[in-house]
Structure formats: structure tokens, C-alpha cells
């Protein structure tokens, strides 16, 4: 077999060097995308786990309650639980460094006398003994920086560092330098230690703890100790192993990661078709050769093995190259994805991307697996080639029976695709339902692609009728082009199917992004009606934001022109062990100016009831994930213990797909013991000078609180920026899919024209000029592009609608409005035709300029 491959395949591939290279590059890109996204997804997960494990130190159990925090009074209760050896309380968070743009410190506030039992902090210079610790604690502006950070910012021992805290900019003195070991390694060394009370003040978390790290007495069972602690906590916090905490954080990213995976699947699907096309075209082109081999005694199974092995060897080599390209691509993708995750979910300390055995296996499994799948049918077709093919002198033209078979297959697949959604097993999770939804989409796509030969014949019939009605124009080349297409609808169908699949995939991603953007902007317009939004640390409330205290309220309220001031708070919490968001604002204060986009229930009534403290409003994602509807009750873990709330309505909220609960600020403050503010929403009086208000706020508080004062438009732009950034990887994959599609189309058109050298030679012999032949081939390619473009857009429209309305809904619980990207649709059509004209022109020129005698005798 090896010798046969060397004899037949290698020479064939070498002879068709351009097509081989295009296929090779196509597989390389497909595998590269798969590998890159696998690396990105794994690195995201391992980064969170790694950070949590580094910070956890020797802790076996951790008590926490998201950003709701744990009341300090609980500390002695937990510490004194039988089986607990040491308990180290801490608060944690990010604080921007004033004067250093973009610099953010992960500040860990610990009890220096208790923390060393759980974590080993290594200090530079003399050992940090009890005296050292007491000296550090005694001065309330002490901070310990890592050695690398101190070097990078030029802040040696004794230097002052100003941080933007919840009380505004505060100055701290560097009193110790940490070696970058253990916990201090997190976030690339942008780490600082503070004494617990100092950090609590900086974060505005007085009387609260973020976490309690626990070690267990020897001989005690961890699970037993855990359950004892759970009893004592009475729902006021959760106790978990550090790994479980990591998993909880991971679950935040599920949709994000599945979304990325979906995008890589599209690249793989386009790659699948590229390989299918290449092998199909190669089989079609080599029918006579295969017929001869059959005459010479080659068995059917040898042909099957031969064709499949040829594809596998090419994909193996391409997969090897794909792995390297994927690793490089991952480096770039991680930067962008890391930024998105930090903006949308949590600050992430990205680990360095590495290539593991699992990604290597994935690369080869996807590269070889897809090639095997793609090559099987054409290989089976090759085994059906009879030895009589060796007698054929003209290009092979499949019988109409094949068009019928393709049509039947197409209709079956089209009918089956929606059925898939109904016959999927009940009880599937979000990811399972999403997978079925994607599978239905791909089956639909295959179905429509299988109908391309039928569409060609129908289109040609229509076109001929149209051409005959315009007798005053010379349409000779166009008629010849139509003849070419109608004679071999299967061959042209392969090219059109490639276009349909590529365009549909690209259009689906584009329409999805367009719909997300449209829905998000419409939501921002309804949800955020304030004229000005004042925040610290970042323009939008979220992980980059620094919550402030209410100290600013009187000053801002008194500003001339400010009519209504409301305070917005956003924290991360959990419900039934899964991460959720808690949002709060004062429904009463903003009653006349705020609207709430609702998915279920009356918004005005729900807000009134919320203002009266009668319950909470949950988001669509919350309803979808936990099945809670108006009238139900939810039990939320608060620092005061488990609190029950009635669900008053369901609102549309795109802040988080893990689910959000909206509660009135007064009730929130009472139960959560939290007076922090993430954003001050300002509504100005009619005719008020907006610029003057902004100037005044910046002048009075800007420097001290590191404020961002955003107009409604600026906030909208910030939201769009964050969204656009989270789709950077999608765009990159889309570009790759376009490149693979271009390769595929050039590949099939090139093969199609080369296949007909003899036929073109005959045309030349009977009097067709070179120009006419060129025009005929180019027009044919143009029709292919046009038809492929139209069908691709039809498929893309159906698929994108399904993806936006169904797939996204089952995965995230979000309902997005479907926005049709009309401009992009036109661009797709134009590109499709232009690409085919271009791809057809090169072989057309070659075919037209071939010597006639040579072309007629062409083998």
C-alpha cells in the first residue's frame, strides 16, 4: 500500500500542487482553530483553579459568600468548630494604582497573626517575625508589595503608593517586600498584602470578610468538619474545598467557553467540506485512472483504503502543522479572551498557554477524524467505479440518477433537522440542548447543500427562458455557460455546496453578533435611562469597577441640574451553589425616570412592589436556569443568613447569563449590610447643562475617587466595546473560515475547468475564440457564485435565526431580538460572485490558451 501511495498519490498530489497546497492549508487552519480554542478554554479554567489554589495555600476548606461577604462575627464561631485547626480571615479585591495607567493591584487583606498558619509569605531581607508583623500592623498605612512590582513601579521600601479605594485615593507606605512565591505569584506579581482592618476600610467592607481559609486538625474527617461548619453557618455562607470554589467560578464561563467551541466547530465543519470536496474532485478526476487500475486488477477494498489513506496522510501532515499554528494562535487569542473575561466575569490571572497531550490528541482526532469522515463517501464512490471507466474519453458526467439521489437525501435531511429538536432526550442540560440545536442546524445545512444540483437545474431552466426573451442581445457565452452547468449539476453542485456551507457559517456568526449588538443596545437604552453614570475604576459596573461609599451622595445630589440620583450596586453571589448576580437600585428614588424591560409580568407594578420591599425581580437567565417564575420564592444566601424573597416578575438582563436577581436598595442594604455603590445614576433636570455637571463632578471628586463620568452615549459605546472585544476570537475564526472557503471554491472551480480541457478544446476547434471560451468559463463561475451566494444566504438566514432565537436561549436563557445584517448579506453575495469570477478567471485563461490539438488529445 505504501508503495502504491508513493506511486499514485504522491505523483497525483505533486501534479496538482496548487490544489494540494490549498487543501493542506485549509486543514492546517481548521486544526489550528480547534487547537487554539481548546488551549484557550483549558487555560481559562486552569488559570482560575491555579489562582484559587495559590491563594488558598494550605487551606483545606474555605468559607465564603461571593461578594455578599461573611460577617466578622462568624469568624470565632468557625474557628472554634471542633476539627478546625487554624482559620485565617481575609478580604480581597482589585484596587487601581493612582498615577500608573492601567495598573491594578490584587490586594489581599489578612490577619498577620493568623495567616502564616495557612499561607507562607516569604519576605525579602530580614525574616518577618512577630516584631516585624506587629510593627507592620501598628501603622495603618502599611502595605507589602512584591519585589517585582516594586521594581516595575519604582516603589522601594518606604515609598508611597496611592490606591483608588472605596473612600477615594489613599496613600500607603511600602513597609515590606514579598518574594514572588506562593500566593504572591498571582496576577503576575501585581499583588499586595495589607493588614485586615486596613484592607476592609480600603474595600469598604468594614465588619465583613470575603473568605475564611481553614486547616483541619489531624485525624478529623474533612467532610464531617465541613458539615459541622455548614450547620453553624445556617446559610449565611458556603463552606467548600478550594477546588469546588474553582469549579463554581468555572461554571460562570460555561456559556462563554461553549460559544468559543461552537465557533471552532464551524471552522472544522467548513474544513470538513474542503476535504470532502478535494477528495470528491480527486475521485471524479481520476475515474478513468481508477477504471484502468480496476482493469489491471486493483480490488475495490484496495481502492477504498488507497483513497482514504491518501486523505489521512495529507491531513496528518496538515494536523502537525495545525498544532504549531494553533499554539501560536492561542497566544494571541488568550490575550483577547483574557481581557474579555476580566471585563465580563472576573479578573483573571492568565497562565501561560501550553500545549498538552489532550490538545495534541484533539488536533489529530479532529484533523484525521474529519478527514476520514469526509473521505469515506467519495472513497466509497471510487470503489463503485467500474473498469469500464477506463474506456471513457470524455470528462465524467454523473447520471441524472445521482441528482435524484442527492435531492432525496437533501429533502430527508431538511425534514429531519427540525425533528431533531423534538426527539432529543428529555432532561438534557443547557449545553446538551445547545448541542442538539447546533446539530439540527448542521443537518439543515447539509440538507440544503444536497439540493444544490436540483437548484442548478431549476436555475438554468429559468435563466434559459429569460435569455430567450432577450433575443436582441448576444448571449452565446452565457448559453454555453448554462449548458456547462446543466450537463454536470453534481460537479457544479459540489462548488455551490461549498459556498453555501461557508457563507451560511460566516453569515450565522455575523448575524448573531449583529443581533447581540442590537439587543444589547436596545436593552441599555431601556435599562439605563440615566443621563450621567458616575463610577470608579471602570466605566461599566463589573469586575473592573471599584465600589464607592455613599459619601458622595449629598455632594452630587446638591449639584445644580441634578434632578434624580439613584445608587446602583452589583455583586456576585450564589444560588443553590451556582454563581448569580445580585443587582440593586432604589426603585422609589428612580420611580419616575427608570424603566425595566420585562420578559414576564408588568414592569411598573413589579418595581412598585419591589420598592415596597415585597420581593425581588429575577432575570430571564435565572428563570431558565432555576425555573423560578413570578409568585415563586427564592432563598438567597446573605450575610444575615438565608433570606426568602417572593419573585415579582422576570426582567430582561444581559449582565450575566448565570442569572441575576434585582432587589430594592433599601432592602439590600438592610439584609446584606452593604452600603457600597458601583454606579451613581443621575437624571438631569430639563434644560440642565450636562457638560457643566460633568465638569463639576470631575472637579470636586474626579481625582480623589478616580471617577469616570459617562454620558448615556459613552456608556453605550463602552458596552459595545466590551461586546466587540468578546467577539474578537469569533471574528478571527470567521476570517479563517472565509480563507478556508476561498481555498475550497478555488479548488473545486480549478478542478472543474481542468476536467473539461478536452471539451473546451473541442469548442475552440469548432470556432470559439479564446475570449469566448474565457467568458464562458468565467460566466459559469459567476453563476455558481451567484447561486451559491443566494442559497448560502438563505441557509445563513435560517441558521442564524435559529441560533439567535433557540440555541442562545437554551444555553444562556437570554432572549435576543433577531436583527438581520442586510449590509453584510449584500456584501456576502457580492463577495461570493466576485470570488467565483476570480477563481474562474485563472483556469479560464489557462483553458482558453491551451493549444487546441493538445486539448483535444488531453488525457
Amino acid at each position, binding site marked *: 500500500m505504501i508503495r502504491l501511495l508513493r*506511486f499514485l498519490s504522491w505523483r497525483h498530489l505533486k501534479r496538482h500542487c496548487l490544489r494540494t497546497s490549498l487543501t493542506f492549508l485549509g486543514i492546517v487552519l481548521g486544526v489550528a482553530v480547534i487547537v487554539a480554542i481548546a488551549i484557550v478554554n483549558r487555560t481559562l479554567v486552569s488559570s482560575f483553579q491555579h489562582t484559587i489554589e495559590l491563594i488558598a495555600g494550605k487551606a483545606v476548606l474555605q468559607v465564603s459568600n461571593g461578594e455578599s461577604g461573611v460577617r466578622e462575627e462568624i469568624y470565632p464561631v468557625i474557628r472554634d468548630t471542633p476539627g478546625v485547626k487554624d482559620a485565617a480571615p481575609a478580604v480581597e479585591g482589585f484596587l487601581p494604582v493612582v498615577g500608573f495607567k492601567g495598573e491594578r493591584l490584587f490586594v489581599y487583606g489578612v490577619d498577620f497573626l493568623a495567616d502564616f498558619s495557612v499561607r507562607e509569605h516569604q519576605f525579602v531581607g530580614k525574616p518577618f517575625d512577630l516584631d516585624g508583623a506587629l510593627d507592620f500592623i501598628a501603622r495603618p498605612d502599611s502595605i507589602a508589595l512584591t519585589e517585582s512590582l516594586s521594581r516595575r513601579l519604582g516603589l522601594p521600601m518606604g515609598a508611597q503608593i496611592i490606591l483608588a479605594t472605596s473612600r477615594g485615593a489613599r496613600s500607603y507606605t511600602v513597609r515590606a517586600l514579598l518574594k514572588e512565591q506562593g500566593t504572591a505569584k498571582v496576577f503576575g506579581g501585581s499583588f499586595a498584602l495589607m493588614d485586615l482592618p486596613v484592607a476592609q476600610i480600603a474595600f469598604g467592607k468594614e465588619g465583613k470578610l470575603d473568605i475564611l481559609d481553614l486547616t483541619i486538625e489531624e485525624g478529623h474527617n474533612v467532610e464531617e468538619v465541613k458539615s459541622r461548619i455548614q450547620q453553624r453557618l445556617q446559610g449565611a455562607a458556603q463552606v467548600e474545598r478550594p477546588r469546588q470554589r474553582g469549579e463554581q467560578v468555572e461554571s460562570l464561563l460555561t456559556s462563554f467557553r461553549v460559544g468559543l467551541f461552537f465557533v471552532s466547530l464551524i471552522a472544522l465543519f467548513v474544513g470538513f467540506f474542503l476535504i470532502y470536496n478535494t477528495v470528491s474532485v480527486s475521485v471524479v478526476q481520476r475515474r478513468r485512472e481508477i477504471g484502468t487500475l480496476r*482493469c489491471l*486488477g486493483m480490488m475495490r477494498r484496495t481502492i477504498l483504503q488507497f483513497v482514504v489513506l491518501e486523505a489521512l496522510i495529507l491531513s496528518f501532515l496538515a494536523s502537525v502543522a495545525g498544532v504549531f499554528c494553533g499554539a501560536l494562535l492561542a497566544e494571541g487569542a488568550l490575550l483577547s479572551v483574557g481581557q474579555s473575561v476580566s471585563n465580563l466575569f472576573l479578573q483573571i490571572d492568565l497562565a501561560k498557554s501550553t500545549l498538552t497531550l489532550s490538545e495534541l490528541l484533539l488536533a489529530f482526532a479532529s484533523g484525521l477524524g474529519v478527514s476520514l469522515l469526509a473521505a469515506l463517501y467519495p472513497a466509497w464512490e471510487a470503489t463503485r467505479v467500474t473498469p469500464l471507466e477506463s474506456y471513457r*474519453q470524455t470528462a465524467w458526467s454523473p447520471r441524472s440518477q445521482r441528482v435524484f439521489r442527492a435531492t432525496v437525501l437533501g429533502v430527508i435531511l431538511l425534514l429531519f433537522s427540525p425533528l431533531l429538536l423534538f426527539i432529543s432526550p428529555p432532561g438534557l442540560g443547557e449545553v446538551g440542548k445547545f448541542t442538539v440545536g447546533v446539530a439540527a442546524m448542521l443537518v439543515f445545512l447539509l440538507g440544503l447543500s444536497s439540493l444544490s444540483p436540483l437548484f442548478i437545474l431549476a436555475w438554468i431552466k429559468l435563466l434559459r427562458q429569460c435569455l430567450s426573451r432577450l433575443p436582441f442581445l448576444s448571449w452565446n457565452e452565457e448559453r454555453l455557460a448554462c449548458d456547462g452547468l446543466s450537463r454536470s449539476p453534481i460537479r457544479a453542485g459540489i462548488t455551490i455546496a461549498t459556498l453555501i456551507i461557508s457563507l451560511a457559517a460566516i453569515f450565522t456568526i455575523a448575524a448573531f453578533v449583529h443581533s447581540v449588538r442590537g439587543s444589547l443596545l436596545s436593552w441599555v437604552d431601556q435599562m439605563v435611562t440615566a443621563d450621567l453614570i458616575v463610577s470608579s475604576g471602570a466605566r461599566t459596573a463589573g469586575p473592573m469597577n471599584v465600589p464607592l461609599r455613599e459619601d458622595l451622595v449629598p455632594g452630587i445630589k446638591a449639584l445644580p441640574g441634578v434632578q434624580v440620583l439613584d445608587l446602583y450596586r452589583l455583586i456576585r453571589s450564589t444560588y443553590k451553589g451556582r454563581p448569580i448576580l445580585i443587582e440593586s437600585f432604589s426603585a422609589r428614588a428612580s420611580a419616575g425616570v427608570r424603566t425595566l424591560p420585562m420578559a414576564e409580568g408588568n414592569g411598573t407594578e413589579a418595581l412598585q412592589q419591589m420598592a415596597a420591599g415585597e420581593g425581588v425581580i429575577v432575570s430571564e437567565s435565572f428563570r431558565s436556569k432555576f425555573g423560578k417564575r413570578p409568585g415563586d420564592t427564592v432563598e438567597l444566601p446573605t450575610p444575615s443568613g438565608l433570606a426568602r424573597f417572593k419573585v415579582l416578575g422576570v426582567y430582561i438582563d444581559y449582565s450575566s447569563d448565570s442569572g441575576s436577581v434585582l432587589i430594592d436598595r433599601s432592602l439590600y442594604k438592610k439584609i446584606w449590610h452593604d452600603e457600597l455603590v458601583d454606579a451613581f445614576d443621575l437624571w438631569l433636570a430639563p434644560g440642565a447643562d450636562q457638560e457643566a455637571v460633568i465638569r463639576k463632578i470631575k472637579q470636586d471628586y474626579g481625582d480623589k475617587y478616580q471617577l469616570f463620568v459617562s454620558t448615556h452615549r459613552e456608556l453605550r459605546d463602552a458596552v459595545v466595546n466590551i461586546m466587540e472585544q468578546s467577539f474578537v476570537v469569533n471574528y478571527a475564526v470567521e476570517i479563517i473560515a472565509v480563507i478556508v472557503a476561498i481555498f475550497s471554491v478555488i479548488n473545486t472551480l480549478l478542478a472543474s475547468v481542468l476536467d473539461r480541457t478536452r471539451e473546451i478544446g473541442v469548442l475552440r476547434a469548432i470556432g470559439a475564440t479564446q475570449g469566448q471560451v474565457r467568458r464562458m468559463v468565467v460566466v459559469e463561475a459567476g453563476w455558481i457564485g451567484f447561486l451559491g451566494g443566494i442559497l448560502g444566504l438563505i441557509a445563513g438566514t435560517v441558521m442564524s435565526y435559529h441560533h439567535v432565537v433557540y440555541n442562545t436561549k437554551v444555553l444562556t436563557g437570554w432572549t435576543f431580538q433577531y436583527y438581520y445584517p442586510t449590509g453584510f448579506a449584500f456584501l456576502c453575495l457580492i463577495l461570493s460572485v466576485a470570488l467565483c469570477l476570480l477563481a474562474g478567471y485563472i483556469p479560464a485563461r489557462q483553458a482558453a490558451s491551451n493549444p487546441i490539438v493538445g486539448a483535444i488529445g488531453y488525457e
Partner: protein
Amino acid sequence: MIRLINVHKIYQQGRNKITALAGLSLDIQKGEFAAVMGPSGSGKSTLLHLIGGLDRPTEGQVLVDGRIISQMVDDEATLFRRTRIGFVFQFFNLLPTLAAVENVMLPLILDGRSGSESNLRAKTLLERVGLEGRRDHLPEELSGGEMQRLAIARALAFNPPILLADEPTGNLDSKNGAAVLELLRQINTEQRCTVVMVTHNQEAAGYGDRIVHLRDGMIEEENPR
């Protein structure tokens, strides 16, 4: 050596039935050189396909070398064809990417013979057909006559007892055509190889021991030379 008993071959083309062979019976003896002639559509090529096991009769039996080739399953017929029948085509059907020697080696490689053995045999065969100096040339670098001689060398790879030639001179000038026919005749006499040759050319048919005339799928007349 070759026996066809009441062989019918009917092709279905859309709704029409086309009868290629209509109850043809024929015996060709071992070592015989039979030329088959007839107008287009008389069933000449179909006859050759059936003898070579490339196709099956609709009715009747085809016996080749004592075996009923028309009843063999595909793999059996393929293996039989590989070693017992050599094919020579009008358009040569050489693999354009393979050098002359590799084209000859191909059937041997398909049979799993070693590279050195195949190479040695191919060289001998190239010498036999007078192409020893062209062994590393690609088919496109050879003349029509050379290509057909190369195709004959390939057909002889296993020294088959039967050689089937479909218009072997149809694509050649008279000089090259004569050389090819001489070669076929030589193989027939020296190796006692049974040759069945389909041709339109009366002169070419003259090389055969017997000329079988076909018309409408039946034998019209047989002329011993």
C-alpha cells in the same frame, strides 16, 4: 480457452433497451489470434468487456481459461483479471504521473510483489517491446506508438495467457500501427498467448488467425485467415 454460450447483453438507457449482444456463441482456442470486426454498435467492445470480466452478460455464460468468469464475484474476477488477462486500450490508459517503468510495474505492485522483483520484470518487458531506452520517461514524453508498446508491456506483466486489445491501432499512424500489430502477433506466436483484438481496420484484422464479423450483436460471419 474462451467460450461464450448464448450470450445476451442488454443495456437499459432511460426507457429504452439497447441490445448489444443477442445470443452470441463463440469459441476461441488457446493460442489463437482472433480479430473481431463490425460496424459501430455491433457489440465488439461489449464482447471484449464480457471476456475480460469488466461487465456481466444479461443472459448466457462466458468461460475463460476453463472458468465461468460471468459468475465470478467482483474480487474473484479482479484477481483473475490481474494475472490471467492483459488489456490493451485504444487510448493507452497509461498513468500520466508514472514513468514508463513504473507503469509496467504497477500490476505487479498491486499484486504485492517486491519493488526489486517488479522493477526487474518491468525492465525485461520494456526490452521486449523495445523501450529500454525510454524507461524513465513519462507517457507524455513518448510517441503514440511508444505509448501503445508500453501499454502492451504492462499487459504482459504477469505473462497472461489471454491478451484483449480494443482498437490497439485506432490512435496510431500506419507505421506505428503495423509495429504494434507485429508485436501482438509475436507475443501470440512466441508465448502461445490467446489474443482477441477488436478493430475497425481490415488490414489490422489481417494479422489475426480468424476474423469474426459482428452485426447487431450477433456473429455475421467468420473467416479463417
